[in-house]
């Protein structure tokens, strides 16, 4: 592997610029003549927009324009789309209300834009926005899913009667009912998966620059997938044809899913730039992030699990209400269906599963994919059910899991997914050893003597990553293919540029992707650079989400590398007067195996470009590209065990230990993988203990600032004890499964299982705030 190859703990190349303040984010970019946009947003959760009077604002200094929702509709800018079609159980397509980029008639959540002020500076735009008078007629609003589906509830969209987007089912209902009829034991559980605000460190931002001479737009935006943004803006929103629209996503400070989607603000910036004839910049503030970045989770679920007399699971029934907020965001429809219900088999042999998911509109911020996207909700549900079952059946929770683990692969679950490989016992063994599971009873007894309630909680998660085989997702309703592209450009001096359709917004691609090149060619990573995030540079790409960049994006790079190496070997063989089959690549040289004859890689590159002496018929140059479409999802899995203490006087939780034993297949850079796991665990623990995006009954957000929304901080978290067990993924040549979301998927259940173990009561919702835990302890 070499010191910088696959498996090496290489320090991140990109960190020098990030740590020294030299990163270049959208807000750092300043264009000549640039104007600034400030959005006028609804203070009401549901209202009619009666009148917008911008006459006073237009007279204020520096104001260029005040543009309204009616104007954007009149100009035929398309409504926002949802890119994954879901069909209800009655065969009808999902029912969607229109979502214009600014509301012309009706606002349906607090923060929805009704107009935008364009001015010479950000402050002038904001001043003028205060002078715009919007006359609203308030309508009754509803924020909670159960309230929204009740008869007589306020209705959001005429297209969706009863506020229902879809009623979708998966699995065999008859077989599942039959399994329950014969069950020796049935375990029931109601869980709420709390709504989260993603809170990337960098707020969303956009700069749109229209060049009237060329009728060409450039959009700088905080995107996880600039090519998908261009495709959607071009194909659906009528902004410009693709060759007249360049999308650049420069350094992006975190996404966690929230920057996958195309939002109204960048659509408005593009449209407004053409209208005012100057570049338009918008940078969201933290309040706008809370109000308008797509939220995550927000499920209410009832589940039942059937067991036979030997504690083997015989069936699973799930009914979930998913809160979509006021509009269907880009991939929202897929999250509680194909990204959730297809993982309900967990790590277990479950002969039959039936799940029903009802998607519901409410007067809240739209909900879409957030780190894990559906899989945390599935894993949390299954792992809370397993713990509940162990308590009800009076068996050790780890043992109950072992009794039901899938041990033969490949394994076809009853809910679409076919697991390719794994060793669930190995992960659980590693985690139990790391936490000294056997010694827990003694530790619990000792803690009791100190007045503390100690608990232990297990969570054995599995997720589907490496998203995704295009044909498979196409058959399930996806509007796009989910392959990835790569290009390897070797320069005449032998340095290498890798162009990738993946996008790094913190993941470390500029290091890990170079490590593959270093591994194959034996050149230092300083000789390699990664190019991404610009539709003019990279031909196409599907971007970064769903833990896909290594499993899909890096495999595409490998495929392009193989093509490049094949040509380079021919050139080397020609120069060395040897057979191509005898050429091996070692330490940056192409050698004739078994001899001391060799040519350095830069000389091969130079030969390719001078073209003075190439094999007969060979084209000059050394540049290859590849598209890679995976054949299956990948299935990272692992076991997390959390040990903690609860203070019965305050209900406060303190961690004692948190162990994570993950199987990610092959690791490219273990240091970066550990960082990913740390971040994921922080988000999973944050959901379990702290985070909750709350609305009051009228749809007013209660937690729209860090004074009320509890983001996890370093001192809320334990030091993590990480380890890896490895089964290589057979689905891609590098054996990679992906690691970006695991922590967020597996951690929450471990924490809640541990707290409920500590307090001896099973029912406890997230976030397990001290008040809530104290109340549960002392409830009759």
């Amino acid at each position, binding site marked *: 592997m070499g010191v910088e190859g696959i498996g090496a703990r290489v320090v991140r190349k990109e960190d020098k610029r990030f740590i020294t303040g030299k990163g270049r984010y959208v807000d750092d970019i300043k264009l000549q003549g640039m104007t600034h946009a400030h959005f006028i947003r609804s203070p009401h959760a549901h209202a009619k927009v009666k009148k917008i009077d911008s006459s006073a604002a237009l007279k204020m200094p520096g104001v260029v324009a005040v543009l309204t929702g009616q104007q954007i509709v009149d100009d035929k800018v398309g409504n926002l789309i949802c890119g994954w079609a879901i069909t209800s159980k009655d065969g009808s397509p999902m029912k969607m209300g229109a979502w214009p980029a600014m509301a012309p008639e009706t606002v349906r959540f607090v923060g929805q834009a009704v107009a935008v002020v364009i001015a010479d500076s950000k402050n002038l735009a904001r001043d003028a926005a205060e002078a715009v008078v919007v006359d609203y007629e308030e309508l009754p609003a509803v924020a909670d899913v159960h309230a929204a589906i009740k008869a007589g509830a306020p209705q959001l969209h005429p297209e969706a009667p009863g506020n229902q987007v879809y009623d979708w089912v998966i699995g065999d209902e008859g077989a599942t009912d039959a399994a329950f009829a014969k069950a020796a034991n049935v375990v029931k559980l109601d869980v709420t998966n709390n709504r989260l605000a993603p809170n990337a460190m960098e707020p969303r931002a956009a700069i749109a620059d229209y060049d009237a001479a060329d009728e060409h737009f450039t959009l700088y935006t905080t995107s996880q997938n600039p090519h998908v943004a261009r495709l959607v803006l071009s194909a659906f929103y009528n902004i410009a044809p693709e060759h007249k629209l360049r999308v650049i996503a420069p350094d992006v400070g975190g996404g966690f899913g929230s920057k996958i989607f195309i939002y109204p603000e960048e659509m408005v910036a593009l449209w407004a730039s053409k209208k005012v004839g100057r570049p338009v910049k918008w940078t969201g503030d933290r309040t706008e992030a809370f109000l308008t970045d797509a939220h995550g989770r927000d499920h209410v679920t009832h589940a039942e699990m059937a067991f036979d007399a030997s504690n083997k699971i015989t069936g699973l029934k799930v009914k979930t209400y998913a809160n979509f907020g006021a509009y269907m965001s880009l991939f929202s429809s897929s999250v509680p269906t194909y990204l959730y219900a297809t993982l309900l088999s967990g790590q277990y042999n479950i002969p039959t599963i039936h799940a029903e998911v009802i998607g519901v509109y409410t007067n809240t911020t739209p909900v879409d994919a957030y780190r894990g996207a559906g899989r945390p909700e599935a894993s949390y549900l299954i792992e809370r059910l397993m713990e509940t079952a162990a308590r009800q059946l009076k068996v050790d929770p780890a043992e109950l899991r072992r009794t039901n683990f899938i041990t033969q692969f490949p394994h076809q679950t009853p809910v679409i997914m076919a697991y390719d490989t794994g060793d669930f016992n190995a992960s659980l063994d590693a985690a139990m050893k790391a936490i000294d599971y056997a010694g827990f009873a003694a530790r619990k007894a000792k803690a009791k003597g100190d007045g503390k309630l100690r608990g232990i909680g297990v969570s054995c998660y599995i997720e589907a990553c490496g998203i995704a085989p295009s044909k498979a997702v196409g058959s399930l309703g996806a509007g796009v293919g989910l392959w990835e592209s790569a290009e390897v450009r070797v320069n005449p001096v032998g340095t290498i540029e890798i162009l990738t359709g993946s996008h790094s917004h913190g993941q470390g691609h500029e290091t890990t992707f170079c490590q593959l090149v270093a591994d194959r060619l034996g050149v230092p990573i300083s000789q390699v650079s990664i190019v991404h995030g610009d539709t003019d540079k990279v031909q196409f790409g599907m971007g970064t989400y769903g833990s896909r960049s290594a499993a899909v994006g890096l495999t595409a790079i490998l495929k392009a590398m193989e093509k490049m190496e094949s040509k380079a070997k021919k050139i080397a063989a020609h120069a060395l007067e040897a057979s191509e089959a005898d050429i091996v690549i070692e330490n940056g040289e192409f050698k004739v195996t078994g001899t001391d004859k060799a040519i350095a890689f830069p000389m091969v590159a130079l030969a390719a470009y001078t073209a003075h002496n190439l094999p007969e018929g060979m084209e000059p140059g050394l540049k290859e590209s590849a598209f890679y479409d995976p054949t299956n999802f990948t299935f990272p899995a692992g076991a997390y065990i959390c040990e903690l203490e609860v203070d019965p006087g305050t209900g406060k939780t303190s961690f004692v230990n948190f162990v994570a034993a993950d199987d990610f297949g092959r690791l490219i850079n273990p240091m970066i993988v550990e960082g990913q796991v740390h971040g994921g665990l922080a988000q999973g623990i944050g959901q379990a203990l702290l985070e909750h995006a*709350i609305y009051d009954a009228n749809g007013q957000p209660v937690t729209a600032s860090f004074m009320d929304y509890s983001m996890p901080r370093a001192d809320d978290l334990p030091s993590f004890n990480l380890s890896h067990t490895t089964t290589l993924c057979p689905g891609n040549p590098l054996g990679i499964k992906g690691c970006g979301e695991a922590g967020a998927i597996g951690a929450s259940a471990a924490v809640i299982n541990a707290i409920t173990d500590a307090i001896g009561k099973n029912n406890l919702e997230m976030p397990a705030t001290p*008040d809530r835990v*104290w109340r549960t302890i002392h409830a009759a």
Partner: protein
Amino acid sequence: MYQTTYHRASSVDEAASLFSKSSEAKFLAGGQTLLPVMKQRLASPSDVIDLAKIKDMIGVEASGDTLTIKAATPHYDVATSDAAKKAIPALAYLASLIGDPAVRYRGTIGGSLANNDPAADYPAATLALGATVKTNKRSIAADDFFKDLFTTALEDGEIITAVSFPVPQKAGYAKMPHPASRFALTGVFVAQTKSGEIRVAATGASQSGVMRVPAIEAALKANWSPSAIDSVNISASGLLSDIHGSSDYRANLVKVMAQRAVAAAG
């Protein structure tokens, strides 16, 4: 933020004079509340008069039975002050729990007391220790200083210059931090003065801001021990209730934090 005029005062007199000449002036004493509020355009002072750079207003001094903290002393300085740690360790400890490191480097005791946030930490110590708030016009006893939420005995334009804390026989502070803001969800400061008086103050709990807790004071007067508080009944009536803590949870916290503060005081 709306446009404003910033003044860096070099003396208390200059600050007072600047204030009297401005139409809608605000004193800036660290800015950990005022600046975020201004950024959100919820406050629009015509003038901001910075007190935090006035040299005479910074420092911690122990003299006899009194610890004096000058008003523009940041929380970090109090938390790490040898004089404070020796004279009233519970007060230095309280300062170490305020907000986060960034807040502790900027925020000041004078700013905290003048703002009188119902969940701020310093009001609990000031009230429980029976401190005296010194201003550019007079001295105000703690019992007379705190009036209601964000309301004090300070007159318009009056500047806190220092706070004098009588060194107690014993004192302790215990705080349940608000999970998001790190203010006190409830914090209780207990003190036994050198003359034997028991004073207990709770912050973060009451709808009217920092409060004495007579029931706990009585229990501790009879028996200075955590268990003495076991039988005290704290009513949830009049206590704050929000998404982070219901009023009955806060009532519980008043008791539990008081017990822990007594245990810490020894």
